[in-house]
């Protein structure tokens, strides 16, 4: 009898937790999507009324600033992924396979940068960027992103290479490869699932990044995350337009996640 009660309580707790998680994660997205298809007058009462419209999306798509920001974010994310991964793969491999003072110093460097709070970088970076004349340029946005990704993803990349038995590379060395050849032809292909996973995570991280976008970009290189915030004006917040932009901004990330999920899971299980 007591056993039955305990089982019922356990089931109830499980169901409530599940519901809580569902509400926490799905709730905001649902509200966002509903808001995006409501007229401006209906955004504060999204559960009432039956006025639905796609005019928000049409409106937003016709704002050149938003479309420009989408394109900029896409280009920035792609470039940041390519360059950071290029460096991260080498860096992770070095951390995993080699000893010595260069490796230790590099490890210490990225470790220190990992421990510095992200937000404390942003203001100095703003000053550096204006001084170098790269404020509000693609380069000025790209470099900080690469720096952050290299520090963060080198650790994960090291983990991937640690999981690959080095004797495969030794076999390649004996089979006629140079050290570089063993890396390129044996270690790198073996790490591909991991690299694919990191590419997706890296792309999403740049696409969703807000702080750099806010401080380091301006009129010339608007990014989608900071552009979204500009619907907050002196006369009020255009929630409907902001939501429509947010839903549009979610789409590429959603596509990348849906199609890349398999690789991410396989990579992270390495």
């Amino acid at each position, binding site marked *: 009898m007591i056993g039955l009660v305990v089982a019922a309580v356990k089931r109830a707790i499980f169901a409530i937790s599940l519901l809580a998680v569902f509400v926490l994660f799905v709730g905001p997205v649902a509200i966002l999507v509903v808001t995006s298809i409501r007229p401006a007058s209906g955004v504060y009462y999204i559960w009432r009324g039956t006025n639905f419209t796609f005019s928000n999306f049409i409106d937003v798509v016709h704002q050149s600033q938003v479309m420009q920001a989408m394109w900029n974010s896409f280009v920035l994310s792609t470039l940041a992924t390519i360059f950071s991964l290029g460096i991260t793969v080498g860096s992770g491999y070095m951390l995993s396979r080699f000893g010595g003072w260069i490796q230790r110093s590099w490890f210490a460097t990225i470790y220190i940068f990992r421990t510095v709070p992200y937000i404390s970088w942003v203001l100095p970076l703003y000053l550096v960027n204006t001084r170098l004349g790269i404020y509000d340029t693609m380069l000025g946005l790209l470099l900080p992103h690469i720096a952050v990704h290299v520090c963060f993803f080198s650790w994960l990349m090291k983990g991937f290479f640690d999981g690959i*038995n080095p004797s*495969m590379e030794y076999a390649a*060395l004996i*089979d006629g490869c140079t050290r570089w050849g063993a890396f390129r032809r044996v270690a790198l*292909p073996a790490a591909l699932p991991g690299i694919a996973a990191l590419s997706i995570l890296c792309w999403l991280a740049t696409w969703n990044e807000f702080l750099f976008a806010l401080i380091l970009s301006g009129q010339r290189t608007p990014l989608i995350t900071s552009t979204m915030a500009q619907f907050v004006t002196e006369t009020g917040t255009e929630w409907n337009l902001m939501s429509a932009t947010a839903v549009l901004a979610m789409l590429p990330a959603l596509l990348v996640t849906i199609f890349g999920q398999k690789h991410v899971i396989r990579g992270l299980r390495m």
Partner: protein
Amino acid sequence: MAEVVLRDVVKKYGTVPVVHEVNLDIADGEFMVLVGPSGCGKSTTLRMIAGLETITSGTISIGEKVVNELPPKDRDIAMVFQNYALYQHMTVFDNLAFGLRNRKVPDAEIKAEVARATRMLGLDPLLSRKPFQLSGGQQQRVALGRCIVRRPQLFLFDEPLSNLDAKLRAQMRIELKALRERVPTTSVYVTHDQVEAMTLGDRVVVMKDGWIQQVGTPLEIYNRPATRFVAGFIGAPAMNFIDVELADEQGQLRARAKDFDIGVAPQQADCLRKHGAKGVTMGVRPEHIHLGAAPDGKGSSFSGQVKVTEQLGSELVVGLDAAESTIMASRIAPETDIALHAPAEMWIEQRALHFFDRKNEAAIR
């Protein structure tokens, strides 16, 4: 094929030496086995021959050519690893062909060489599979194939059978032996398994703590161990060691411990007298100890309480509490009726005694 010569080879990690002045001559076509417990330096020695570890001092030559500074790819060697080290993203065929492609061998020749190896190892049905689709035994066969196709002058094996289960290991051991006949190439084989060392090696090198303890044919190592370590390491069940005091009695040398007294054969007695020490360690293999009383002139008896019995089906192993230790006797008829804790008598063959110095553990002979 080629001979391999190691001269005063030393390996240190920082200031810690892991291999001490190894001198070794491996003849052309010889199958040399390096055996020893973990951390004895056998794998490091092999990796230095392969060029995967640098040499701190000394020289290594393969085929009369000093290879100290030569990268692995230019040493004309092939190596089998404990975990097979197959290229996971390539098919079996590509794994086999990888080394030849690196050497720009024409495609037709690659196909012929791969076909030769696959025929030898029965890999034909597996050529288009990836390594993760193969069993452990199949993977190790592919690793062997990868060596064969290259026709190198030296094969290196780094504990190739350690990851296989006992049954498969025994089977692969036989296959390796058969393969040796068909592809006679100088080989260095590292293992911690004494059975592999004894069955595969033309000669065996026993190592401990970075030092070579003994080099010899399997029978030499077994019958005339140079140190107490070698004597204890090779052979199962392990050799019995008893600390004895030597005493001359009416012209005959006797080795004595508590409740234990055995006569030493005249020739061996001379060596022991020459050596001079009174307290030595006596070693005797379990198969040289028998149940019952000693026949005249063949050995000496002792008695004690039965402490352990191990029924193996083909033989019975009995441990007797005597001379302040447990003395193991093997090859006793399995049907023998022996009760635990009961008193029993055994005898030791006089001709089968080994004696070791207690300080430096070297054999006295």
